């Protein structure tokens, strides 16, 4: 596991995602309305939609292509759809955001 610096907390807008590419992995990083940071794979299991561009509500993101609803904590696709994306641990230290990859 490696600790990857995403950037300052202030560079992330609340309820909007940002794509971070680490090597081959595309990761979507989200700042929730209460400033917690979540990170999941940036590829919707349905049609590979970029989840970073989706609508964020609470602890979920809705894929911009076909509205798949995905839990930002565990990457689980919500019913009635199915699937799962990888989720990543995140750390905020001294206003800097990191993800564990």
């Amino acid at each position, binding site marked *: 596991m490696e600790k*990857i*610096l*995403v*950037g300052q907390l202030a*560079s*992330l*807008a*609340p*309820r*909007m995602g*940002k*794509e*971070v*590419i*680490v*090597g081959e992995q595309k990761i979507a*990083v989200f700042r929730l*309305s209460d400033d917690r940071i979540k990170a999941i794979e940036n590829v919707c299991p349905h*049609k*590979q*939609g*970029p989840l970073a*561009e*989706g*609508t*964020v*509500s*609470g602890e979920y993101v*809705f894929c*911009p*292509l076909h*509205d798949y609803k995905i839990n930002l904590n565990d990457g689980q696709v919500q*019913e*009635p759809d199915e699937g799962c994306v990888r989720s990543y641990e995140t750390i905020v230290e001294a206003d800097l955001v990191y993800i564990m990859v």
Partner: protein
Amino acid sequence: MKEKLVLIGNGMAGVRTIEEILDRDPNRYQITIIGEEKYPNYNRIMLSNVLQKKMTVSEIITNPLEWYEENQIELINHDPAVKMDPNNKTISTSSGKEISYDKCILATGSRAFILPVEGAHLPGVVGFRTIDDTENMLEAAQKYQRAVVIGGGLLGLEAAKGLLDQGMDVTVVHLEKWLMETQLDEKAGRMLQADLEKQGLKFLMEKATQKILGETRVTGLAFSDGTTIETDIVVMSIGIRSETTLARTTTIEVNRGIVVDDFMKTNVPDVFAVGECAEHNGNVYGLVAPLFEQGKVLADVLTDKETKPYQGSTTFTSLKVSGCDLYSAGNIRETEGINSIEAFDGINYTYKKIFVRENQVVGVVLYGDTSEGNRYYNILRKNESIEEYTPVSLLHMVGEEASTDVSEWPDDEVICGCNGIDKGTIMTAINEKDLTSVADVTKHTKAGGSCGKCKSVIGDVLAYALGGEVVSAPTGICACTDLTRDQIVTQIYAKKLTSSTEVYRELNFSNPEGCPKCRPAINFYLNVAWPKEHEDEKESRYVNERLYANIQNDGTFSVIPRMRGGKTNPQQLLLIAKVAEKYDVPMVKVTGSQRIGLYGVKKDDLPKIWAELEMKSAGAYAKAVRSVKTCVGANFCRFGTQDSMGLGIKLEQRYEFIDTPHKFKMGVSACPRSCVESGVKDFGIIGVDNGFQIYVGGNGGTEVKEAVLLTTVETEQEVIDICGAMLQYYRETGIYAERTAPWIERMGFELVKDVLLDPEKRQELLAALDTAVTGRRGNPWDEVVEDAQTRQELYTVGRV
């Protein structure tokens, strides 16, 4: 090692059987499907809608290729099975593949029956069975004028209507005295004919085709009575024949169809048959409901579930031609022991006939009003005694009839006849899975997914299930609230709610941050209500509007620079070309509204491209005033009466970047030839010698609506003012995501007309529009190019 199951035939019956098997035991078989056509599984019933241009081919695909992948089904497509060896349990395909099986399902369907007359194989003679047939017909309609459809049955009439809709001169030739003679009695058949004649179809009844004329291509038909008719194409629609060629090469017993027992077994071990190719108890079915009933039985058999034997099906029919509502089910011949009750309403032009044997309904024909079809079908199917019904009743009071009250229906009442889904199944699905829309119900239960006629009843069941005791339609704008648009907007004003957080809190939304359905809507309502106080919420806007570029299916974006009125110049073209080359833009295309689009742009390139283009954004991505399409008009065209380009540019300039409940498209044509197709624009102008006709509420798109003539005015200024008034009125009263056609229908055309044509109200609306949009109409691309913070937050991608 899983058992190998091979399905021959990639159509409705076979694939449905596979779905049923996967439902019961997804891991039981290693499945291979062999298909003849080049498409994945599609809904053949909907071909008429494709021909009538109500649906597209992609909309009738029921199981896309991903479905096969997800379920690990091997699909051998566009490669029909040509040989079968039941002794060695192998099947060979046309390309030479050999596949072995443990269990085999034959679902080869049927083919259009082609009359064995001279000339039947001439080019221009087609059947109507497949997507390719349908596309051939659509293509022919482009090239030729006259069409003859042989066969006045269900499919023939739907084909004829489709060709008529494509602008052809269509004659239906029918052998019998009246149309659809197996499903309708004479009276209903004649009513149908009269209605279709009103729509423009021509009929030649009691005509037997003797010969198809033509040497290199069809030119006409000769009938047995010596008469002839000229035509450019002939559609044969006189019936279908089971496709049994493959089975006939083996020892499988074939009669009219492949003979099966009550468990869909053929006489050969481990070989089964379902659908139109199968013959059960002497019957071959050509309708969808029996296929699905058979599929269920076979799925049970193949997964070792106990099952009731298949005992044949009671079929029903309805016609997919608008303006001709008919329904027919069961036995509709008055033979010995069968009597009928008939009611004809000459005022509303409706007709009902119920066929009764020993106090039980055995058949029904409805014409003009088919809302009770389902109810009769259920009485029929359940062999209910009709002693308790009033056989004939006239003029009962409104509301007296409880028959369509779904709350009183028993659970085993069938709602979707095609798929055999009853009320209980739908209720369970709604309750267990929290379904809130008809589409959801279809997704989970398949009810409504075939011919679609039962969707309104599904809506009633849904309303009943969600509304508890009171039967009322679900009213909320989304699953987060029960409040309607009007209730929300009223509360926004009454409580002076100026942010979406307040709306969600004060109006008790179940989800405090909403969903992709309500968030953009609330943001829009707030913008309209409090243009100064409410700060537009980027995080509530859909990605296209947030980034000012359309997201494409692969996650890249499109850039469409502003070209007002569709007009451009060499400098713009050079710039666009330069940028496209520099940023490796994979596709440059002229859009549907006369702009040049750059497609496949990477997100982080967007601001750079905008900066280099030095052009404005076209707003081609938003629920907003899109663009104004124009013809070349009086500038160059010899017919043009007005300066359509000039007016288009003025309209675009005046109203660009204004948000509306849904996209708002305009067009200005300079003469009644309407090259711009102003009749399907939200706001369409047709220049005439003495001024401008204004049409409103025309929508292309998912539901095509023709625009209605609002008025004719003399000056460009009046056009511009009426447009602004309409925009603001639509902004103030529209439901988010409601286009202008349904908006006008909901408001009432007369009301909209009164408001827009009243000079005082028009001025008020224009003033309100100007106030609301002041300071909100900058070019969004400039803002991004100039604002480093926005670029950083929205357009950069981190790379490590």
